[in-house]
């Protein structure tokens, strides 16, 4: 394929990924041509969502299949995934999110409305009966109907645009060109890997709640082998195999410290083994919210640790890499959810950034005013948690501190980072913490890794995320 065409194809694919919170474009052979992610789970699950849908449906132009079931390629239940049929046998996967809830659940269905692959639109016609059934479900996100009313027509407009483009650009979109394009990605990654060290490493991440992630990593012959045999099960942190692969690839990408496209051929560079029934390859109906969030971060950090042993010149010890999450459930069904970013650990590359989500690239951010308008909450303070990053030649990033006042009684749920690994050189950042102040005087330190508690109107919560390790 002509090099001008390679560039054109790259840009063309890039345009189709700029929709929704994350997206993927697949070719007529169901190969992932390109993928834009927001989270680690997206990397592994978007392609699987499309492959699951085509397994059970004959996906044609103008069809839209909706799912959120993590065991069908979804992510958390608050993330809706649309698999869209395009002309020429191509398919397009779009994911968009709603406000999540933190639920300490034992079963997936307790986390929200589970939607297996469901034909929402057929040949450009909305299936109103199915849509109404979804919207009227008590666990359906309250804004879903309003959002779908504008989103579905936008998606269908893009499907028609694709048909025009496919018609005018069909010589460029033929299979041989697509294969050449993918091969170019492979060559690029091979070239990158030829410049890095090879080797083996064994790493373990033990969580304070007792779970164990064991990894045997081998980087050789321009391939990365990740064997998680020996990893135990969990009732709390459950991931799907697809999410685990996504976390591994995300870590691998981050460690290479350069942009590489995510597609079928680059994903093939990883060979991941996860024991069935372990926390990395759970079965339905295991709950997955914490797996898709916390679990992915833990797996990625474990992989980074392993790669740091093989390539110590790029070492980074990510420390408490899983997020601090809280939710406040009010009596009128409103549920406020927040994830507080930790300080980023320092590395050989320099100081860590303050309070930054290391494993999420979310374009939207919470507004204080919007939170206060919508929830019975007052936010008294949001700021960088001064001097919470670890010391060293390079300083760890500081965490964030937020102080909330609860204006109505609520149930507080929380999860603290579960792998508070102290840095052996004593360069740890400060740990995450939650302090509850009742009656304006009683201070209660909530130090369990996870928990829930009823809190009274007028209580204050001071939530502080961890600082990153120094280097």
């Amino acid at each position: 394929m002509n090099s001008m065409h390679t560039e054109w194809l790259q840009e063309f694919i890039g345009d189709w990924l700029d929709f929704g919170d994350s997206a993927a474009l697949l070719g007529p052979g169901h190969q992932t041509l390109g993928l834009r992610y927001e989270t680690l789970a997206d990397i592994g699950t978007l392609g699987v969502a499309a492959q699951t849908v085509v397994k059970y449906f004959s996906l044609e132009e103008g069809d839209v299949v909706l799912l959120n079931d993590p065991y069908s390629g979804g992510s958390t239940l608050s993330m809706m995934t649309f698999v869209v049929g395009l002309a020429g046998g191509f398919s397009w996967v779009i994911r968009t999110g709603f406000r999540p809830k933190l639920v300490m659940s034992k079963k997936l269905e307790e986390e929200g409305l589970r939607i297996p692959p469901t034909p929402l639109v057929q040949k450009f016609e909305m299936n109103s009966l199915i849509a109404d059934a979804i919207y009227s479900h008590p666990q359906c996100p309250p804004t879903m109907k309003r959002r779908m009313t504008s989103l579905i027509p936008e998606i269908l407009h893009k499907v028609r645009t694709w048909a025009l483009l496919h018609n005018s650009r069909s010589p460029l979109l033929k299979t041989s060109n697509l294969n050449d394009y993918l091969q170019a990605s492979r060559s690029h990654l091979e070239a990158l890997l030829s410049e890095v060290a090879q080797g083996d490493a064994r790493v373990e991440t033990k969580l304070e709640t007792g779970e164990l992630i064991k990894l045997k990593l081998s980087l050789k012959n321009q391939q990365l082998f990740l064997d998680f045999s020996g990893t135990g099960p969990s009732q709390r942190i459950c991931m799907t195999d697809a999410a685990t692969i996504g976390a591994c690839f995300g870590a691998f990408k981050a460690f290479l410290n350069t942009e590489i496209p995510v597609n079928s051929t680059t994903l093939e560079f990883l060979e991941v083994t996860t024991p069935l029934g372990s926390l990395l390859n759970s079965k339905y109906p295991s709950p997955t919210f914490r797996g898709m969030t916390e679990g992915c971060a833990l797996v990625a950090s474990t992989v980074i640790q392993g790669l740091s042993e093989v390539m110590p010149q790029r070492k980074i010890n990510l420390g408490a890499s899983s997020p601090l999450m809280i939710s406040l459930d009010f009596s009128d069904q409103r549920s406020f959810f927040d994830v507080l970013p930790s300080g980023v650990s320092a590395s050989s590359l320099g100081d860590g950034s303050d309070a930054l989500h290391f494993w999420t690239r979310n374009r939207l951010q919470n507004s204080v005013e919007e939170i206060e308008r919508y929830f019975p909450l007052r936010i008294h303070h949001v700021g960088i948690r001064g001097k919470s990053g670890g010391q060293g030649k390079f300083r760890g990033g500081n965490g964030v501190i937020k102080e909330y006042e609860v204006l109505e009684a609520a149930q507080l749920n929380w999860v603290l980072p579960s792998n508070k690994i102290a840095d052996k050189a004593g360069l740890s950042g400060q740990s995450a913490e939650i302090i509850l102040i009742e009656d304006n005087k009683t201070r209660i330190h909530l130090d369990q890794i996870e928990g829930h508690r009823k809190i009274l109107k007028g209580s204050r919560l001071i939530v502080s995320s961890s600082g990153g390790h120094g280097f």
Partner: protein
Amino acid sequence: MPVLAGVSLGPSFVEVALIEEKELKAFKRFYLPQTALSTGIKKFLEEAQLKPVKAQVSSRFLEKILGSKLGGTVAQVVTQGFETWPVLRQPTRPHYFELNPLRQDPLASQDLVFGVPERISSRGEILKPLDMQSLKPIHEKLQLMEVKKVVINFLHSQINPEHQNRAKAYFSELGYQVFSATRTESSSDEMPAWKENLLSACFAGSFEELREELKKGFDLPETDILFWMDQGRLAQPAPENYASTLHGWTHTVLQSRTEKSQSVLFLELENWFFVDAQGEQEYWESPWGRIKSQNPRFHRLRLQPSCEVIRHSSSGLGISREELSFEPGPMTFGRSVRPLLFDLLTEELGLEISTMTEAGRRKWQNTMIAFLKNSPDLSSLTLEKFSKKFMARILGQLADEVRSLHKKGSVFVSGFWAEPMLTHLQHEAPEIDWVLDSHSSTRAAVSASLCEGGIKS
């Protein structure tokens, strides 16, 4: 009949039109790196022998400074407890996972952020009255540091602006330039509004210099030089509204359509945009995150005249996504060593502007010939054949992008490049009803001056 001046200020080019009795009487385009704004306008008026009574300005000039480090001496006064909130809401870079992610630098220095005791609730109730005593030490510190610009950013000021107005009055009386725009009640996210204030403060110096140049050039008082702003307002902007002049041009472009249902493909000399017929935006996705911008929805096209023609590692040729500026500009201007899309298009479409030089054109040709020789895939092509193929590809991409953005109705094509490119666009996307603007080559300036009823063709 009074003469009206329309001015379209791009980052590097200025277009001025003089309108009398709804007829275009004179038009000129000049290049700012070679001709100062006031000098260029004066000379134009002398040549035209006309004196306008008013100037209406649509400006993208301030885009030039967006790439530079902003906010060096801007103080921010915020609700106590939220001093680092603007930093925490800066976007993360890069957009992909890597080991050392960073935040986009904030618009103003963190050393000059001051929290004051005050708090308004989400319903507008005063929870903590503004402590006016706390403003004095801030003033003292700013005096020591010789800081003259102050931004006031308080939470929920759109519901109850009392504290904001009092703080603004305090600093104004002390001689500071204060930036604290009134927010509409529907404004629900504080940060785009806060950033708008900061951006106005950052723009202040450059905007005021620009306005002085316009006053000198036209010999008109400030009251007769009006700017197009957010929400289609045409007025003299107060300091806190300087940022709102950035996208006022979108209203002028839409006004020039022949039908209200038309979207506009605005192919201005320096930049290309698609302006949506339907839909307004509330925010602009800037490098610093969302900034308030209530205007027609517009898209800056991926292809721009200032994109560089580059050689790929795979030894092909392509167009970089990075936009270079027009200073030193295209190779055909004679001062640059980097070939731009502008060079290819002007050569292929047979266009000329006064800033192009013979030496520049020869340099362009020689550079492209050398590129082709060194590209195994392309070495058998002559420059002429390559340019034709490359241009076809470029216009194909442009048409594809318009297809993705366009929803329904016809597309009104306007701007410097409109007429030369129209046939090619019609060929690339025949299903779109392309309508050419009869004033396409003078559109920017004419639009800026638009009054009711428009200009006679």
